[in-house]
C-alpha cells in the first residue's frame, strides 16, 4: 500500500523555492520537537510547521552534541585518538574503532593477525545486535508500546554483559586498537554467548508476536514514510533503510571487509519501503547477526597473536596519504576518511555517518504531509543517532 500524499493543504511556494508560510495568518503553527522532547532520538530537534494535524514543513536542527572530534583528533597522536573515537557514536561505538584502526593500519602499512580479524568481526556483530535491540524498543516506544523497550533493553543488558567480560566496559569498549584487538576471548565465553543468543531469539519471537503481528502497530506503520527507490541514491540512503526499499545494498557483501567473505549470509531485503518494512528488515537483520555470531564462534582460530607489533607510539609517524574505510553498521554505511601528512598527528579525519544524510535531507523530505503523531515514529524508523551527525 503506497502512501498517497494529500497536497491540498500545502502552502504555495515563493519564487526562490521556499514555502510561503505566514505565521501571523493563524493558519500555521510552529512546533518544536526537541531537543527536550521524549519523542526525539537523542539530542536533536525538528522544527515543524503544522497546518491542522499535518506537517507542511520540517527542518532538522542539529549541533547540540557537537564536540569537534575532527578538530580534537588533529591535535592528538594516532594512539591518543584511539580512545576518543568510540565516543563519536554512542549506541554503536565499535564501528568508529574499527574504521579508525583500519584506516591507520592501511596508511601505516600494518599487517593485522588473522585472529584479530575474527574477533573484530565478532565485536562488530555484537554491537550491531545492541543497536538493533535499542532501535526496536525505540520504534515501539515511539508508538506508545513501552513494553517492547523493556524486553529488548533487558536482553541488551545481557549483551552488554558479554561486552563487559570481553573488554571491561559496558558502553565504550575501546577494544579494537590500531594493529589488532586488545585481547582474546575469555574462557567459557562461547557458552555464555550461546545462552545470550538464545535469550535474544526467544525475546525476538515475543517481539514478533506482540509488535509485528499487532493490528494497531500495522495500522500505524504500514504505508507511513514511503521512500521511493528512485531517490535512494540522490539522498545517500544506505543500510537497512535502503534495503527496505528493495535495494540490496550491503557493504558486508558488496565490498567485504574483515572475515565477511568467509561467512555465509545474504542481505535482508524488504519491498514496501515503509516504517513497518524497515522495522521488519531490522528484525530479520538482527536474527542474521545472531546467526553470524554463531558462525564466527564456530570457525574462528583459537590461538595466535591478536596484535601486530606497533612502532613506538610516541614517535609514530605515518607517511603522506589519504584513504577511506567503510563498513556496514546497523544504520547504514559508516566510513572514515583519513588524511595524513607525514607527521605524528592526523591531518584530517572525516567521519561519514549514515545518520548525517538520513536525518537531514531525507527526513526533511519525508516529514512533509505527515501527521504530527507520526513524526516520532518516522524519525525513529530512519534509525538516526545524533552524535554521529555532528560529531
Amino acid at each position, binding site marked *: 500500500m503506497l502512501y498517497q500524499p494529500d497536497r491540498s493543504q500545502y502552502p504555495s511556494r515563493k519564487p526562490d523555492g521556499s514555502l510561503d508560510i505566514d505565521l*501571523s*495568518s*493563524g493558519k500555521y503553527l510552529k512546533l518544536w520537537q526537541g*531537543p*527536550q*522532547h*521524549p519523542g526525539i532520538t*537523542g*539530542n536533536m530537534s525538528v522544527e515543524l510547521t503544522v497546518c491542522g494535524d499535518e506537517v507542511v514543513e520540517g527542518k532538522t536542527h542539529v*549541533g*547540540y*552534541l*557537537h*564536540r*569537534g572530534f575532527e*578538530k*580534537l583528533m588533529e*591535535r592528538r597522536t594516532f594512539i591518543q585518538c584511539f*580512545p*576518543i573515537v568510540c*565516543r563519536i557514536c*554512542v*549506541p554503536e561505538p565499535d564501528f568508529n574503532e574499527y574504521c579508525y584502526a583500519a584506516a591507520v593500519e592501511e596508511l601505516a602499512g600494518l599487517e593485522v593477525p588473522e585472529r584479530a580479524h575474527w574477533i573484530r568481526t565478532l565485536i562488530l556483530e555484537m554491537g550491531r545486535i545492541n543497536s538493533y535491540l*535499542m532501535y526496536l*524498543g525505540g520504534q515501539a516506544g515511539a508508538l506508545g508500546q513501552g513494553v517492547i*523497550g*523493556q524486553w529488548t*533493553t*533487558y536482553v*541488551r*543488558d545481557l549483551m*552488554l554483559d558479554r561486552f563487559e567480560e570481553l573488554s571491561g566496559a*559496558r*558502553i*565504550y569498549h575501546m577494544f579494537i586498537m590500531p594493529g589488532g584487538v586488545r585481547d582474546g576471548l575469555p574462557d567459557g565465553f562461547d557458552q555464555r554467548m550461546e545462552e545470550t543468543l538464545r535469550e535474544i531469539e526467544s525475546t525476538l519471537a515475543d517481539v514478533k508476536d506482540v509488535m509485528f503481528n499487532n493490528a494497531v502497530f500495522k495500522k500505524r506503520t504500514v504505508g507511513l514514510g514511503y521512500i521511493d527507490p528512485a531517490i535512494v541514491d540522490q539522498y545517500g540512503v544506505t543500510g537497512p533503510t535502503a534495503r527496505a526499499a528493495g535495494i540490496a545494498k550491503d557493504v558486508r557483501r558488496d565490498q567485504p571487509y574483515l572475515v565477511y567473505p568467509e561467512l555465509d549470509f545474504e542481505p535482508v531485503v524488504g519491498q514496501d519501503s515503509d516504517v513497518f518494512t524497515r522495522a521488519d528488515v531490522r528484525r530479520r537483520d538482527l536474527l542474521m547477526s545472531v546467526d553470524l555470531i554463531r558462525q564466527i564462534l564456530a570457525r574462528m582460530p583459537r590461538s595466535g597473536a591478536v596484535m601486530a607489533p606497533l612502532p613506538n607510539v610516541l614517535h609514530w609517524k605515518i607517511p603522506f596519504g589519504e584513504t577511506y574505510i567503510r563498513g556496514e553498521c546497523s544504520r547504514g554505511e559508516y566510513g572514515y576518511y583519513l588524511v595524513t601528512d607525514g607527521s605524528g598527528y592526523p591531518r584530517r579525519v572525516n567521519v561519514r555517518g549514515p545518520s548525517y544524510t538520513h536525518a537531514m535531507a531525507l527526513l526533511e523530505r519525508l516529514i512533509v504531509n505527515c501527521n504530527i503523531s507520526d513524526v516520532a515514529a518516522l524519525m525513529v524508523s530512519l534509525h538516526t543517532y545524533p*552524535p554521529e551527525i555532528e560529531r
Partner: protein
Amino acid sequence: MKDDFPTPPVRDELKKRVVETPDGQTIEIDPLRDYYCQSAPTVMPAAYSKIVEGLFNWARAESLWILGFGTGCGAIEMRPLMTPRFDAYRYGIQWRPTPRQSNLFVISGYLSVKTLKRVIRSYEQMPNPKYVVGLGSCTINGGMYFDSYNTITRLDQYLPVDVYIAGCMPRPEALLAGFEELKRIIRAGKAEGANQYAEQFDWYKANQKRVIHDWDMPDYNW
C-alpha cells in the same frame, strides 16, 4: 577575560513587529517582552515549621522526577535504569517529559554551548526545589573534551550542581549510588541549589553570557 565579542544581530522572530490578527485587529508584538517573563528569581524560604519542612524534604527525596532531556552521551545509560535490570522506579525515580513537572535535572554528559542554552532555559522552568546531577567526567572538568571549543568544562560555573558522578561513562550502579547520595543530601535539607542560583544570579548569568555569544533570550524565563 576581556569580552571582545561583538553582539550578533537579533534573530528575525525576536524582532518587534506589527501583526494583523485573523479578526482584523492590528497589534504590535515585542517577542522578548510579550512571550517571556523577565524577572529575576527570588529566594524561596522553606516552610515555617521544621517538621513540615522535614516531611517535605523526605517526600522530595523519595520522589525524584527526572527531566527527560538527554543532553549528552550519558543518556544511553539512563535507559537501562528504566528497565528490568536496574529499575530505578523502585526508588521513586521517574522520568517526566516536561520541565514543569520534574525536579531533578540529570546533565548526562558533556554540554555543548548550544545545548547549554537549552539546558538553562529548561532548568529555569523547573519549579523551585530543583536539583542538578552532573553525570560523567566531562561535566566536572571537561574530561575527554577538555580542549574542545564547543563543550563547557565546568558545569558548576553555569548551574548549581548537587552531586557529581564521575566516570566515562558511569555505570548504572554508579548512577543509582549517586541518586542515593542526592537523596541523603535532600533529606538533610542541604540541597538548596535553586536558592543558591537565585542568590548568586548575577554571577551565574555573567558566566553563562560569557559562553553563549548570541544571547537572544531574556535573562530569566520561567
